[in-house]
């Protein structure tokens, strides 16, 4: 738990309200949430060494408080297959973002394709911390297939929420898609709701989008935490 407080403090000292992705993922890990293996690399060789140890393919993401919309800024490069790719991407980042303050480059094992889900929390004026679950990905705001619960939520409530989305069939082995482990998903919802509840004085909102559900499990691929 101390690690979470330390990160929050560090972010506040830097006059930021948004945690960078690598910080958000440390917070999730501290709550017992499994995230894909990653490290924050500060030079190309460190990045290559990590990539070699995780195994390919690899995703690289620029960690900078000046680049929060990473995809729009082409600061996320996926499907890197060799150590040359890693080196080249690292240099490319340094070149393209030479004018921004860089914390490092997140080198992360790439998760196999699957169903993209979202779990998030927000602070409601009437109800305090609330948690959302639904169909995630880039279309999340267009599809709006989501369900809310109050934090902290129980496992039962979370299972009910999972079964309440309109596209529930997508989770149940729809046309060759993997069957989502609803039990593990409910645990993940409970864990995130616990985080929102225990840190309700600090955390304003969170997104894990997407959580990728593939045949081997559930993986929070991108995470965003915004402080009050």
């Amino acid at each position, binding site marked *: 738990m101390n690690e979470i407080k330390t990160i929050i403090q560090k972010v506040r000292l830097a006059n930021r309200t948004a945690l960078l992705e690598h910080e958000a993922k440390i917070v999730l890990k501290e709550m017992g949430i499994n995230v894909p293996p990653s490290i924050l690399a500060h030079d190309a060789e460190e990045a290559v060494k990590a990539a070699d140890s995780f195994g390919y393919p690899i995703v690289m993401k620029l960690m900078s408080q000046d680049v929060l919309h990473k995809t729009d800024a082409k600061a996320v490069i996926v499907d890197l297959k060799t150590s040359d790719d890693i080196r080249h991407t690292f240099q490319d980042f340094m070149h393209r973002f030479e004018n921004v303050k860089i914390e490092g480059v997140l080198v992360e094992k790439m998760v196999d394709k699957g169903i993209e889900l979202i779990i998030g929390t*927000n602070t409601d004026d*009437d109800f305090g911390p*609330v948690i959302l679950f639904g169909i*995630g990905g880039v279309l999340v705001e267009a599809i709006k297939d989501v369900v809310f619960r*109050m934090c902290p939520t129980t496992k039962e409530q979370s299972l009910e929420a999972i079964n309440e989305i309109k596209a529930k069939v997508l989770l149940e082995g729809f046309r060759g898609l993997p069957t989502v482990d609803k039990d593990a998903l409910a645990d993940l919802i409970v864990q995130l709701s616990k985080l929102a509840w225990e840190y309700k004085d600090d955390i304003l*909102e969170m*997104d894990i989008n997407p959580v990728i559900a593939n045949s081997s499990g559930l993986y929070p691929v991108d995470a965003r935490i915004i402080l009050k």
Partner: protein
Amino acid sequence: MTTKLEKYFNAKSFCVVGASTTPNKPGNVVAYNFVNYFPGKTYLVNPKGGKLFDTKLYKSVLEIEDQIDAACIIVPAKYAPQTLEQCGQKGVKNVIITTGGFSEAGEEGLELQKQMLNIMKQYQINVIGPNCLGLYSPALGYDTMFLPASKLKRPSAGPVSIFTQSGAFGAAFIDQLSRLGSGKWVSKFVSYGNASDINESDALEYVGGDPDTKMVLIYLEDFKDGRRFMEKAREISLKKPIMGIKANRTVTGAKAGASHTAALSSDDVIVDDLLDDAGIIRVITWDQLEDCVLAFGTQPLPLGDRVAIVTDGGGAGVMASDMVSDCNLKLAQFSADVQIKLDQTFPSFYATGNPVDITGSATAEDYRIALEAAYNDPQVDSVVNICIPVIPDLDIQEYIAITKEIAHRKEKPFVTSLVGGEEADFATSELLEEDIPVFSSPGRAVRALGMLTDYTKYLKKRGIDPHTIMVEE
């Protein structure tokens, strides 16, 4: 723990501050209500002194020697703070302030409400209101509704407790219930107005624990204590149904935020999901509230979602069937012996599936056979009885008698829809007089079943046998 509202309803002495000698003025009506119906001691206060309804008018609360358990303040807003202060000095701990002109009425009113809040804190007074109708309970002879009975008719004692943020809604709905069926509906009515102290969560907590409240009906526009409300509702909805309107659905959209979650957090989407999670049956329109009272107040809960429809009109049957699927219900498949009986009894041009369409040739006897068969079938959880009485061979008196006979068994939900003109109206009022639920369209009748069945589904999901929940008398 004694809830705040219990202290009001359990009062043995009550004081009307601002009792007016002018007929039909609010202070006159409330004084009349308490002098005539309240079984405890009633004290009236009017600075002029004298007498009203053969009862002494004290010039001030402070002149009264006995203890006062609860009081209603009906004085103009600008005098309310000093009146409340006197109540505080007198040691009155439970006060209803019906007068308007406070936080709902601009700067000056807001200032007055702030003054009152300070006095409330200083003397530890519980307050209902301001700007409300206060409390009504026919069984307890408790009535601070300041509108005269000649205008606002009072329903008699029954299973439904109601709480409302809007006084005007409350007045209209109370008046409506007075002429719905037998008019025996209301257990407790709470209109809390500006909720300066007692709010929706206090009201819910009280009616939840009140043994005379069998069902809870709410009208809310916003929450003062939303988290507590949802937590209480989750517990109470396992023991008695809670239903109603949360209006104000469209005013605020999602606020811009840095996350997708914030962007998706429109107020009403959250409210809707949380109400559902708390087991509250949400309705949207006013007419559905009356349907709620008729359905939950008179019918047992169904054990499942299988519906049988009996009709003399094809179109009405089709529309009812559509509503069956809209409400997530199913058309029942009759048991083999029931199906054989229907097939053998009725002429070949009657449709003997579900809906059973006994056509324009139907007689009252045909209704009896079809309704009995459907009602007695263990594969049917609830029955819809549709009648378009214009057909030539139907004896309406006989039809009414058959409907009454089955309706009074109360083994499973049984709803009726009569569509047409004079004869339909006649039959409707005959049946409603005995609190047999009749609806003005087949869709409304099925929708009422849908609400009952939704509650059954909710209870089952929480592992509760719907038969342990008794609402209807």
